[in-house]
Structure formats: structure tokens, C-alpha cells
């Protein structure tokens, strides 16, 4: 932190908030609000004269409330810049001045009660997101008595108590009597790996953090008895198994089973934990002086806003999703944005540093190149057919289309550097004035025509997205899984590209069954494009029903690249459905749809492609 603060080419903006981000890779505009400290940070020498005279005392958040601070304070000892900040929520008041002792005490006149927030814009080429995480609040797990029993603390609170710079200068004491405990119990997976309460995922760091804590305790207090209640100890990683073994060698007792209940002795404030040791099958009660809850990690609640600004998609866990879990693990789907640390998933310091280094290296590749290579697959708006409806602007997951302004005669415009080529705009366009390079409407019509040219009654037309469903088909193939041979896949970059017209065209050409398949919502390569697919399919089902066509003939399925088994199973199920579709039904559908349904659209798209080719 100190190095970063001193670095000549790094501008460190502390106590600041990003208010808005616009632009695209290489050309981001970031609006920042630098909150006022009410202190001239360049003039302040951190002499602490102001703090000494401040009469307000509040709990110190950094010390987890175990000690207090003043209303004018330095947030933590290593804070950069090393300058005081005035906590205006707790100050006695500056307008009119109710106290003013800090200003009187400051020889350098650093304190300015009229100081206001600064707003400024930055132009940057890339953005690295490192908004971190927050620990799980175990209050809802009432059986552990957190907040009811003072001697039940969290692992974060333990860190402050055992830290030499903490409220008790590293002399570990229990809160009720300020005496060094004789026995401490650690409970693992508090809030983690729980579907009903907390979060379903493993928080990654808690096991090794507890192992480290037990070693620290044994090192400081060799006579102290530590007990660890756990489900599994996950000590993967370099040197971690050694640490775990050392912890057991120094006498830490590991009990496989989580306590169901904690009771407190009202006289001694000792705690009684009842747990079943699942290795022996015995239920035993353990008396300890203190309990440490190894709480899990959850996404920061205030990261939602920045996620929306950068058009990032959340995973089902609430962290942000990377562009590709294996090949682009530090890249966001939005080009020019990178991740470092726990914003992407819970991880320890080593992994965070590794990821941060990777993110910076990725950003440097872009910045040093000075130019950006973009995908050739982007959308094109044909202005002459646009009616300024603005739908394309609303549906674009990457905010890559600039808004239209009919009065000013401004058509929507695609920012090609920001467009990722999902094709949702083309599928949603009400006038079909948007085409996709390399994935033109006419190409899809031609593929459907070719599929249904012979024996259409025997075919299943399946639109599959490039990243998941199509790859799921590959997975099924390479796994030698059997599925019906009459399924014909039409590859789209995203299921969001599947225009209702493509589906209707397939039915018009005699398809008994059509499948639209894409990524699971949490896997969508194009942020939330898949949600538009679902909405479009739901509308198409309604439309089919109104036209007298069974909606069952249009199927929808989310299949990931790893779900080869599911791909094969779904194809077998679809074959069963196809066999139930009669020739009369298909003929009737063809008759209904031949009565002028959107033929003009198809002609326009074909004409456009012909013009491009010529």
C-alpha cells in the first residue's frame, strides 16, 4: 500500500467512489467522487493533536468494535495517505460549530469544516475491478449464540485480538473477563456450504485460516487447548497439508462434526458445545472458554452498482462472472475490464496476488499495443429501415449501441469496439434493420432450407449457441454418447441471435420440431443475452398458440458445454416428441404460415446480403 502511494505513475484515490462509467475498451470515462476528509491531507502530518482533544468516542470499526476511536481519526495504522479524516456522522457539529476543539488544536490549520466533495472525470484505457468481499454475518445462526454470548467471536474478531497491533496488543483474552482462555473451540463452515442459511459454496480460505490461527495460539500459549469442529479440512495448496499436520502435531484436536448447539454457563461464562463426532458416532459435550466461528465470505453488497456500470453479469453466488472460466479467468465479458481478488470468487492472499498480477499483465498487453483487435462478428444497423424504436439500445447487454434521437435525426449506432456479437439486437429489432456480420439472416434461412430440403418430417431443427449447447453436443460426441441422428444443429454465437422469424421459417418449411438451446443463465457468455432468448421464446409460444400451432413443437433448453449427458438425453426426448407430430399437423402449420407471415422480412434480409456479396 505504501509503495503504491509513493509510486510516481500510480494515482491513488482513497476515500473515493466511482459514480459512473461510460465508453468502451481503450476509451473509458470514469466519473469519480472524492469524498471530503475535512482535512488538508497534504498539510496534515498526523501529529495527533486533534485526536487528543476530540471529545467524541465511538467504536473502532477496524478493531471490530473491541476498542474505540475519536470522531477525528486515522482509519488504520497503515492507511495511505497517513492523514486524519473527520467522521462527520459522529462529530458534534460544524454548522454552527458545536465543538471546534480539533481546529483549535491544529497548528498547521489543516482542518476545514467547509471542505466539499470533489467530482472529476478520468479517461482510462482499461479497468481492473478489485472490490473484495465481506465476511458472512453469523447472527442468523442462533444456535451458535453469536451476539448472545460475548465469548463467541468470529474469525475476523479473532484476528484483531491476536494481532500485535490490535486492541489488546496481541495478548489474547476473552471478552468477558479479559483473561487468557484455557481452551478455544473453532467451528468451521459457518455460513459456508449451506443451502438453507448462508451460502452454498465453500469459502476457500476458512480451513487454512483456522489451521494458522490454531498454530498461532499454540505458539503464544502452549498450554491452551484448541479444538476444531469441521465437516472436511480442505488443505489443498502448496505447504497447506504440512501446516495442517503441524497443527495436529502440536496437540490441536480435530473433531469431525459441527456442534448443533452452544450453551453458556451464566456464572463462569464458559461455553458448552454439543456435537456428534461422525467418525466415532458418539455425541459429546465439550466445555471451552471461547468459541471462534470460522465465517465464510460473501460478495460485497455495495458492489452491485459497479457491476451494473460495467455491464458485468453475476454468478449464481453473487460474485462476478469471468469471460471464460479456464481461458480468460481474469477477463470480464466487457472488454478492457479485468478482475483481481475476491470480486470474482473467494480466494486467499496468494491467489489474489496471482490474479492481480495476471490482470495487470492482461491490461498491459492492451495498453502497450495501443490498438485493439476486435471481433469481426458485430452488428450493423441499416439506417434506412430504422424506425428509432430504441429496442436495440435496451436489449444490448454491453451497452454497445448509442441511443437514437428522432428529433435530431440521429440513428442508433453500434460501437464496434464494445459489440461482442451476440446478435440479440438483430433478433429483437422490430423492423429487421440490424444484421450480424458472418451470421446474417439469409445464412440461417439457407441452413434451415438445406436441413428441411429432404424428409423434413424426420428432422429436428436445433439452434445451439456456440459456447455452451453446441459445445455440449461436441461433448456428447467425444464421450461417444448415443443420440438421434436426425437432429440438425444450427450454430449461433448466442441463443439471443435466434430470431422468431428463423423459428417460423423452419415451421413453414415443414419442421415438426424446433429446439432453441443456449447457456444456463449463470454461464451466458454475453452477460444476460440469454434472458432475452427466454422472453422471446415465451412470446413465440403465445403467438404459435394463437395461430393454432401447438407450442410444444417449440422447445427450449439450457445446456452447458460440460453437459454432454444432458445434451444426449434432451435429443432423445425431442425425438420422442417429434414422433408424435403428425403429417397433417405439419401440413396445417405450413398452410397457416404460408399466408404472408413475415415473407417481406426474409426478402429484405436476403436482398441485403446479396447486395453485400455483389
Amino acid at each position: 500500500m505504501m509503495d503504491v502511494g509513493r509510486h510516481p505513475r500510480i494515482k491513488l484515490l482513497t476515500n473515493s467512489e466511482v459514480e459512473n462509467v461510460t465508453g468502451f475498451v481503450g476509451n473509458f470515462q470514469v466519473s469519480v467522487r472524492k469524498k471530503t476528509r475535512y482535512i488538508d491531507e497534504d498539510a496534515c502530518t498526523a501529529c495527533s493533536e486533534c485526536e487528543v482533544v476530540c471529545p467524541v468516542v465511538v467504536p473502532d470499526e477496524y478493531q471490530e468494535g473491541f476498542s474505540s476511536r475519536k470522531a477525528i481519526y486515522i482509519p488504520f495504522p497503515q492507511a495511505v495517505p497517513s492523514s486524519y479524516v473527520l467522521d462527520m456522522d459522529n462529530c458534534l457539529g460544524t454548522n454552527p460549530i458545536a465543538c471546534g476543539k480539533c481546529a483549535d488544536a491544529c497548528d498547521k490549520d489543516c482542518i476545514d469544516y467547509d471542505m466539499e466533495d470533489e467530482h472529476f472525470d478520468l479517461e482510462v484505457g482499461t479497468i481492473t475491478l478489485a472490490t473484495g468481499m465481506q465476511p458472512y454475518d453469523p447472527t442468523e445462526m442462533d444456535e451458535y449464540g453469536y451476539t448472545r454470548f460475548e465469548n463467541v467471536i468470529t474469525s475476523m474478531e479473532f484476528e484483531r485480538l491476536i494481532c500485535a497491533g490490535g486492541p489488546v496488543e496481541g495478548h489474547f483474552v476473552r471478552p468477558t473477563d479479559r483473561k487468557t482462555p484455557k481452551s478455544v473451540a473453532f467451528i468451521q463452515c459457518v455460513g459456508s456450504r449451506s443451502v438453507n442459511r448462508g451460502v452454498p459454496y465453500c469459502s476457500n480460505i476458512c480451513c487454512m485460516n483456522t489451521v494458522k490461527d490454531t498454530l498461532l495460539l499454540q505458539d503464544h500459549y502452549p498450554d491452551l487447548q484448541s479444538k476444531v469442529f469441521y465437516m472436511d479440512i480442505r488443505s489443498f495448496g502448496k505447504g497447506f497439508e504440512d501446516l495442517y499436520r503441524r497443527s495436529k502435531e502440536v496437540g490441536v484436536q480435530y473433531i469431525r462434526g459441527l456442534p448443533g448447539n452452544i450453551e453458556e454457563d451464566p456464572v463462569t461464562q464458559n461455553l458448552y458445545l454439543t456435537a456428534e463426532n461422525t467418525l466415532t458416532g458418539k455425541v459429546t459435550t465439550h466445555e471451552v472458554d471461547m468459541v471462534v466461528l470460522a465465517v465464510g465470505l460473501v460478495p460485497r453488497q455495495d458492489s452491485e452498482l459497479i457491476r451494473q456500470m460495467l455491464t458485468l453479469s453475476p454468478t449464481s453466488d453473487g460474485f462476478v462472472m469471468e469471460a471464460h472460466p479456464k481461458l480468460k479467468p481474469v477477463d470480464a465479458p466487457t472488454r478492457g475490464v479485468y478482475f483481481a481478488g475476491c470480486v470474482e470468487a473467494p480466494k486467499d492472499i496468494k491467489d489474489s496476488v496471482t490474479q492481480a498480477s495476471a490482470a495487470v499483465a492482461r491490461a498491459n498487453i492492451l495498453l502497450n499495443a495501443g490498438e485493439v483487435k476486435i471481433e469481426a462478428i458485430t452488428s450493423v444497423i441499416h439506417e434506412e429501415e430504422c424506425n428509432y424504436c430504441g429496442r436495440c439500445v435496451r436489449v444490448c447487454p454491453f451497452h454497445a449501441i448509442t441511443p437514437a434521437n428522432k428529433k435530431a435525426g440521429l440513428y442508433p449506432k453500434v460501437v464496434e469496439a464494445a459489440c461482442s456479437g451476440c446478435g440479440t439486437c438483430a433478433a429483437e429489432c422490430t423492423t429487421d434493420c440490424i444484421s450480424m456480420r458472418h451470421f446474417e439472416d439469409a445464412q440461417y434461412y439457407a441452413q434451415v432450407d438445406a436441413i428441411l430440403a429432404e424428409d423434413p418430417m424426420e428432422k429436428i431443427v436445433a439452434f445451439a449457441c456456440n459456447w455452451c449447447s453446441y459445445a455440449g453436443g461436441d461433448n456428447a460426441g467425444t464421450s461417444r454418447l448415443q443420440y438421434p441422428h436426425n437432429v440438425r444443429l444450427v450454430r449461433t454465437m448466442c441463443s439471443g441471435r435466434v430470431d422468431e422469424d428463423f423459428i417460423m421459417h423452419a415451421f413453414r418449411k415443414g419442421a415438426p420440431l424446433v429446439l432453441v438451446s443456449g447457456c444456463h443463465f449463470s454461464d451466458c457468455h454475453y452477460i444476460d443475452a440469454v434472458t432475452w432468448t427466454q422472453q422471446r421464446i415465451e412470446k413465440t409460444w403465445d403467438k404459435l398458440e394463437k395461430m393454432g400451432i401447438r407450442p410444444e413443437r417449440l422447445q427450449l433448453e439450457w445446456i452447458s458445454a460440460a453437459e454432454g449427458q444432458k445434451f444426449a438425453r434432451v435429443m432423445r426426448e425431442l425425438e420422442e416428441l417429434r414422433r408424435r407430430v403428425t403429417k397433417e399437423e405439419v401440413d396445417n402449420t405450413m398452410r397457416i404460415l404460408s399466408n404472408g407471415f413475415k415473407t417481406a422480412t426474409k426478402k429484405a434480409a436476403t436482398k441485403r446480403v446479396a447486395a453485400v456479396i455483389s
Partner: protein
Amino acid sequence: MSESAYFKCLRCAHEYVGEYTPKAVEEKTCPKCGSNSVRRLKSPPAEKAAG
């Protein structure tokens, strides 16, 4: 706020009552066959005649 709604699986024809949140687009899965071809019905499914 979520509310109860009728759903029909277009794969296995299973009809059921589930939670539905207006304006929230969520992945739907049939509780019987696991298919994602689940359609929200705007009215309750017709009662089937006994016998």
C-alpha cells in the same frame, strides 16, 4: 415480490404451481422431468373430467 403462478412443461405436459416474480427473468425448470421448456400459464389449467 413473488407470487404463485401456474406453469406447464411443454416436454412432459406436467402442470404445477410455482413461484413467479414479475419482471424477473429466471431460469425455469420442470420439477418432474427437468426440462427448461416451461411455460407460465395465464389462467389455471382446465379441470380434467373424471372417469
